[in-house]
């Protein structure tokens, strides 16, 4: 299982990954706008699969600190989107990527509702819209190339590799610099675990990016499994209800016949 370790302490906010992503996926550029932070674009959408969130925090001593948090599809180990999709247009590949099939999607947008990180986006500007999101450059992985964002990163913030090795590396860094890192890897267990692993200076609770796709309260249980558990019960409910209804139908019918018969006799 491949993954990317995102050591946000090494990010300088150059956005080379955003540009590389656009080039590889052939996405149109757009005019920049000012925002309250220097984040640009302001949101992920059908033309922007990744972006850097610029977040300024103040340390307890009163020092200002910039956090640069890369956002894209986190490629969950048990993706809620894939559990949600009624036609199976979203699939988790054994190598890691969660990929989308343009040809079978019906455009119901349940994946957008279900994703705990609010990643799948819709082509609202098109008459015949499809879902768009980061593909983990699945088309590069099959050719043994690393994802375009990781390939473009000048500071080594984005490290591509095997997930278990990257986790070891993440914990090694935390152990080596206890003061520098928040001692948890976002994505190791978050939402059942993801293929994007975040090292940050502060907890996501402190960073306060709830509304920008990084909720600290997702828990370790993949939400997609709630759907699977429900579906596991469905055949039994169908059998029980069906059996009871059929039985009672014939019981009632027979009882009606006997009553009619008795009435005629009496």
């Amino acid at each position, binding site marked *: 299982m491949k993954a990317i370790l995102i050591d946000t302490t090494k990010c300088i906010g150059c956005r080379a990954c955003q540009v590389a992503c656009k080039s590889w996926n052939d996405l149109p550029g757009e005019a920049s706008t000012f925002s309250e932070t220097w984040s640009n674009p302001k949101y992920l959408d059908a033309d922007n699969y990744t972006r850097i969130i610029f977040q300024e925090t103040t340390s307890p001593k009163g020092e200002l600190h910039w956090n640069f948090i890369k956002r894209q599809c986190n490629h969950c180990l048990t993706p809620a989107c894939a559990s949600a999709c009624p036609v*199976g247009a979203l699939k988790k590949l054994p190598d890691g990527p969660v990929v989308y099939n343009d040809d079978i999607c019906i455009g119901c947008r349940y994946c957008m509702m279900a994703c705990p990180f609010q990643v799948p*986006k*819709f082509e*609202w500007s098109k*008459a015949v819209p499809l879902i768009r999101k980061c593909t983990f450059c699945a088309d590069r992985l099959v050719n043994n190339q690393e994802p375009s964002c990781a390939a473009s990163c000048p500071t080594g913030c984005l490290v591509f590799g095997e997930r278990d090795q990257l986790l070891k590396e993440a914990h090694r860094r935390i152990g080596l610099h206890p003061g520098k890192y928040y001692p948890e890897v976002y994505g190791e267990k978050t939402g059942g675990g993801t293929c994007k692993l975040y090292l940050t200076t502060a907890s996501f609770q402190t960073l306060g990016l709830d509304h920008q796709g990084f909720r600290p309260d997702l828990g370790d249980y993949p939400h997609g499994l*709630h759907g*699977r558990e429900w579906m596991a019960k*469905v055949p039994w409910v169908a059998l029980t209800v069906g059996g009871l209804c*059929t039985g009672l139908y014939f019981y009632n019918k027979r*009882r009606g016949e006997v009553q009619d018969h008795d009435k005629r006799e009496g």
Partner: protein
Amino acid sequence: MSQNAKIGLGRGILIGLTALGIVAGIIRLIAGLGATTNLSDAYPWGLWVSFDILTGVALAGGGFTISAAIYVFNLKKFEPLLRPAKLSAFVGYLIFVIGLFFDLGQPWRIWHPMIMWNPESVLFEVSWCVMLYTTVLAIDILIMALERWQAHSWVGFFRNIYVFLIVAGIVLSTLHQSSLGALFLLMPEKMSNLWASPAIGPLFFTSAIIGGMSMVALESILSAKAYGKKLDMELISSLAKGLGFALVIYFAMKVTDLYARGVSVWSLDWAHLLFYLEIFGTVALPAILLYMPEIRQSSRGIMWCAGLAAFGVVLNRFNVSLTSYGGYRDFWYFPSAIEIILTVGLVAQAILVFDFGMRYLPVHSELTPHGATAETG
């Protein structure tokens, strides 16, 4: 005379609204979802999902509820209500299917779940159940039409498989009515915890029974007025009694669920106000009113209670799928004109189809299907 003129005017307005809805639908298909709706990445689901899909199906729960009451719980006295209930269920599912068609990004791929399976997906199950159940309802309507056309051999054939249709109808309804709630099991973190419950499936199922019963009561009273028929007050009163009972059960389920999850119920934010309106105004209030014999035995009293209960189901579906989700985003959603016109058109179309069915089909025939099976069997 004036009665007829009124009905004629009413139909004229409904036809006009349906025509407007069709125009809105065509604009939507040509210009696309983004251009014609106020949906966005922050609100992927809006009015069409909340009303056309979730509410349409819940209020169409009367078909399977009445059918289960008659054939499973042996309450034979409800037989006169069965066919109108099936007709109203059918128009409810028409709203669902047409609404879904316009809501999908790729409408002509609406058939994909038939051959592209994802057995993990709750929505996959819902699509199959709705497809099959709409077919069952269409066969029910077809049987009525065949009776009207006096195609006796065909009617005989369908009567032989009638038990299968009844059981399939109840099973499919149980599954998808609850599964529509189970869709929201995947996103508890995005919803207000007043509604994000692991018990949302059974809660949806029970409130669909309430929605179905109150719609059957409303339609019986209104159609008796519209077609100048005498209302069987005793029958509607016992239906109202059943509705009151269902409301009490639902209220108990809601309280148990909130208590078991330890939700803080008392607060004055938007979510809580909507919640109070839902639980006290549209569940507890009609239940208490229906407990009073003088209200339960007056058609006006029943109309108000059934109206409140039905509105409560609508409100619940909006709360679960839209308002509950609202606090999660920095954005605001209000449906666009096209969204509203299309929905109004769908409702108008449904009333027209129902009206046509009530006049054209033998919905009040003496020969009930059950009597017929007893005969042939």
